């Protein structure tokens, strides 16, 4: 494998992800602008967000100062060393901090000390998977902290906290209506803190860990992708429609654009458990990827 070239490609991936929002996300924010009344606070907010995206791209600087947790999803052909890739990514992150594509964002949890270089125990997050294809595919998400903090997990049947005092019939049961209630509850609670308009990734099923993991993985789908499962596709559309009726709007100032998209997946569960996990992604939905073969980039994704 051409070592220098792959390192450079990782640095370029980080630059693109932090500074240049993918076209499906930008189009979706532009679409939101058309839905808001000209001169309203929602309209002005989306307009200045679009300006911010533009400046970040022109200057190759982070669109958000919280450059987040780098989460890598890597598919490898058989025989390529994961350790080697891992080392390259860590090196690429250090270079990216120097080049200002990333903020030095890793803190020792116990001492509170900032480690400076952007890597440390558990950072970055890298998911490896072997596949049968003959090239490497890497997808990177930079997941901001404000929106990560408003993620939620429900173990069904679950009382919806905001409602439990008023009407016990409104609890979320183990069916799609229960799932819908959990998701709308999570969107409501995220307001103001999650930097709307956002996108939510949802997983139904799994155990606590695999469920959260899958909910985040849902966000590697492009907003243009159509869910192949017709039941989930319908649920996604219903939730997007209803969430936008909540009136929360961009940054929670009020408006019609609360969610840009909903992505739902399902994995199996054991009879005793029924989890609904929700990962919230802010408007700065930083996701990029590449395919790499024979010492060079085959294709940039998104």
């Amino acid at each position, binding site marked *: 494998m051409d070592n220098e070239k792959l390192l450079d490609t990782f640095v370029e991936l980080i630059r693109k992800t932090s500074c240049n929002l993918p076209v499906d996300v930008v189009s979706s924010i532009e679409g939101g602008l058309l839905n808001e009344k000209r001169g309203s606070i929602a309209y002005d907010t989306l307009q200045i967000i679009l300006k911010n995206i533009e*400046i*970040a791209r022109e200057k190759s600087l*982070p669109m958000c*100062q919280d450059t987040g947790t780098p989460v890598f999803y890597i598919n490898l052909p058989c025989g390529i060393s994961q350790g080697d890739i891992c080392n390259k990514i860590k090196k690429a992150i250090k270079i990216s901090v120097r080049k200002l594509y990333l903020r030095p964002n890793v803190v020792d949890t116990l001492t509170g000390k*900032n480690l400076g270089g952007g890597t440390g125990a558990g950072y970055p997050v890298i998911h490896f998977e072997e596949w049968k294809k003959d090239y490497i595919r890497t997808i990177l998400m930079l997941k901001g902290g*404000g929106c990560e903090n408003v993620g939620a997990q429900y173990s069904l049947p679950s009382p919806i906290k905001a409602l439990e005092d008023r009407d016990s019939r409104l609890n979320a049961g183990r069916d799609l*209506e229960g799932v819908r209630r959990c998701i709308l509850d999570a969107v409501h609670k995220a307001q103001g803190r999650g930097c709307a308009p956002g996108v939510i990734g949802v997983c139904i099923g799994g155990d606590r860990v695999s469920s959260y993991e899958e909910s985040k993985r849902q966000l590697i789908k492009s907003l243009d992708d159509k869910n192949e499962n017709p039941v989930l596709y319908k649920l996604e559309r219903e939730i997007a429609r209803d969430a936008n009726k909540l009136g929360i709007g961009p940054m*929670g*100032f009020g408006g019609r654009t609360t969610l840009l998209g909903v992505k739902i997946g399902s994995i199996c569960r054991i009879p005793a458990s029924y989890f609904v996990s929700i990962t919230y992604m802010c408007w700065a939905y930083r996701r990029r990827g590449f395919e790499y073969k024979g010492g060079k980039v085959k294709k940039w994704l998104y």
Partner: protein
Amino acid sequence: MILNSPINKKDIDSLKAGDTAYLNGIIVTARDAAHKYLIEKKPRKYKKLLKNGIIYHCGPVVDRVGKKWIVAAAGPTTSMREEPYTAEIIREYEISGIIGKGGMGDKTLNALRKYKAVYFHAIGGLAQVLAECVVDVKDVFMLKEFGSPEAMWILDVRDFPVTVTMDSHGNSLHKIMYEKSEAVLDKLIKDGTRE
């Protein structure tokens, strides 16, 4: 409306939730570590700097070019994390304004009323637009101790765009929005799914 920091209490009194404003002058970044430090250690040396001043919930990306610091990205961080400290900070350091995102709770809202201060909301993630408003980095405190994102950066800003979302009269747009959307949520859940 243009406001110059430090802001006198008369100007604070005239601000109402929903007003948009542009800020000029000195703002001081402080987030989790700085808030804890300001309350637990009560360092006196910041009293003059912060009197009638503005605290900005922000952990910027900063570059060193020669002897100058350059702010490369500087949007607001979530304010709610500072809720346990803010009422006391407003009282102790006689703050006039806080810039952040997402709004704050009742304890802060009461302190804003009691000590005459306001909460300015900046748009989350607006790191580039807001970095362009920073004309100078005057100084930095606690850089070595807290690291760059948590340090207290003394920024000189021009035309820094904000919206007053919590005023000194007990009004909070965040509270109003939360209640309004909660009523809609109630209805959506009661109605179930209808095409």
